């Protein structure tokens, strides 16, 4: 071995020394990818707008959602009532605004409850394997085989229709999606060398689950959360439509549709605005979820 063979390169002049490439962090990269998707951007903007309107409704509108005004019934859209008034003379725009509350509460709460049940179940089943995994998998299979629409209908009927009971009923099936995703992820992450490294380093199991597996699952959950909302929105609307959801006089878009059903041909605006809102929000949340899936590289990073 000659000295030449192991001699080191001379120091590089400052300019030529190519500094380490600056990489964007995971979330910065995700935002960059998300921005490229127009539908996702629309979804995000719409979701933020709906949330803002729902929260700020009392400030934004001079009318009350429940107080009839028999002097101004069935009015077509005017400046004072941009979406017209309903059969009891209540401002449609106001009712749409307050109706967003029902949609959001149902959408967010059922998804949140689903996560609270599904994530721990999935993570533990995937990581532990064995009997526990078998049990959870069968449970998932069982619940996904059930006709959820009928169950929800049945439960609400038994418990009496109300917003709370609707959320409760929807939660029964809402955990399946996240549990299934998390179980799969947890199962494949368990096989990674860095989990074995953590075990070799004597990291306690609960820490492995919380510090190593959960952060990997997080982006996926975000997507699953967003993707579950349109389902819940649709469920709320249809349940309220058949009178199984939000009780009047509290407004909900589905219930407003129901009220419009009788004379939708003569007063189309009663029908047009709620159905437009339902369609738009389902589209928006779906777009948001799709954008998140692309942005978070859900398939690639598994």
């Amino acid at each position, binding site marked *: *071995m000659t000295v030449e063979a192991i001699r080191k390169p001379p120091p590089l002049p400052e300019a*030529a020394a190519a500094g380490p490439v600056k990489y964007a962090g995971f979330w910065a990269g995700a935002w960059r990818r998300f921005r490229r998707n127009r539908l996702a951007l629309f979804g995000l903007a719409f979701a933020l707008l709906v949330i803002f309107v729902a929260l700020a409704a009392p400030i934004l509108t001079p009318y009350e959602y429940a107080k009839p005004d028999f002097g101004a019934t069935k009015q077509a859209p005017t400046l004072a009532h941009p979406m017209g008034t309903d059969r009891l003379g209540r401002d449609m725009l106001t009712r749409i605004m307050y109706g967003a509350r029902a949609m959001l509460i149902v959408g967010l709460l059922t998804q949140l409850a689903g996560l609270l049940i599904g994530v721990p179940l999935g993570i533990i089943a995937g990581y532990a394997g064995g009997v526990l995994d078998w049990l959870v998998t069968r449970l998932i299979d069982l619940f996904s085989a059930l006709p959820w629409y009928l169950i929800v209908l049945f439960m609400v009927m038994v418990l009496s229709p109300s917003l709370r009971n609707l959320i409760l009923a929807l939660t029964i099936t809402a955990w399946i999606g996240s549990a299934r995703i998390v179980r799969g992820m947890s199962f494949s992450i368990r096989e990674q060398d860095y989990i074995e490294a953590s075990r070799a380093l004597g990291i306690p199991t609960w820490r492995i689950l919380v510090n190593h597996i959960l952060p990997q699952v997080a982006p996926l959950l975000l997507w699953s959360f967003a993707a579950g909302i349109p389902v819940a929105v649709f469920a709320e609307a249809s349940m309220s439509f058949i009178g199984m959801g939000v009780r009047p006089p509290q407004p909900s878009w589905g219930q407003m549709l129901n009220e419009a059903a009788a004379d939708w041909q003569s007063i189309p605006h009663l029908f047009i605005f709620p159905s437009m809102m339902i369609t738009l929000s389902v589209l928006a949340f779906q777009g948001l979820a799709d954008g998140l899936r692309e942005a978070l590289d859900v398939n690639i990073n598994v």
Partner: protein
Amino acid sequence: MTLNSPQGKQNTPLLDVQDLEVAFFTKDGVVAAVNGISYRLGHGDILGIVGESGSGKSVSSLALLRLIPEPPARILGGRALFADGTGAPRDLLKMAPEELRGVRGRQIAVIFQDPMTSLNPVMTIGNQIAEAIRVNLGQGGRAARKRAIEVLSHVGIPRAAERLDDYPHQFSGGMRQRVMIAMAISCEPKLLIADEPTTALDVTIQAQIVDLVKRLQAEMGMAVIWITHDLGVIARLAHRVNVMYAGSIVEMAPIREIFRAPSHPYTLGLLNSVPRPDLPRDAELAYIEGAPPDMVRLPSGCAFHPRCAYRRERCLSEKPPLLPIDAEHSAACWYWEEVRAASARATPPQGPAT
């Protein structure tokens, strides 16, 4: 073509690659995968292409048959004249897809690192080989089957006739690679491109495959391009070597020359970073500083300069072309004489006493 060659048509190379340039257009930027490489391959030659991952060794060879994903890849320029002996050399890069299909498999065959990706898992080995024979040679039915048995036993698969109806998963890794080779040689190609065919195999199986290809090459007289990162395999097999780094050929030499008098700092570094059997255990192993470059942001001048022990001012700004050392040996280094002198002083390698 023949006009430039003083020896006339006799010496028209089988393959003449000129200024081949390939880039990948990705969302992170343009990956300069192959940066204008030129080489010739004679009839019946075994050419080893050595390089690390990302050096462009595979891309530059697979691009000849358009076996790279386009997009994101794009062939930016160059020619690849292929002389199959039936007429004037034709440019592979300008061929219509139809014409290229006639060359692929029939004239130029390829084997890959992972045979599983190129074998159909739900089709028997016999049917796959027979299909290749039918498509390329126009033989069908019993003739194709007979030929399949012939090539399978030729590549050393025991009881070939019985194994014809087995599926790929019923073969071991080494046997699968033999099946791939059988399929490749079934049409007696003029050129076999082997893309790291033994990298995934164990050393004892690797030795079998290398010996097999060597034997087949001698019997059939085909030319071989053997792509690898392992200089040891090259030493056993190849006649000539191209060493690639960062998408360029940095050294080109007959096999003995590259080991006896490496004249590019990268080649020298690679050779020295393998522990010799006589290297004392308390010694430090020679190594190459740093890591392979980011192919999106290649260093200025000579791409190897940030890692090079022989670097001077000039290397930072001027990219050295392949400079001729003698008729068959060239190196892309401004200071190859220094490198050559250093390598000449190194102790000659000694093998293990077996």
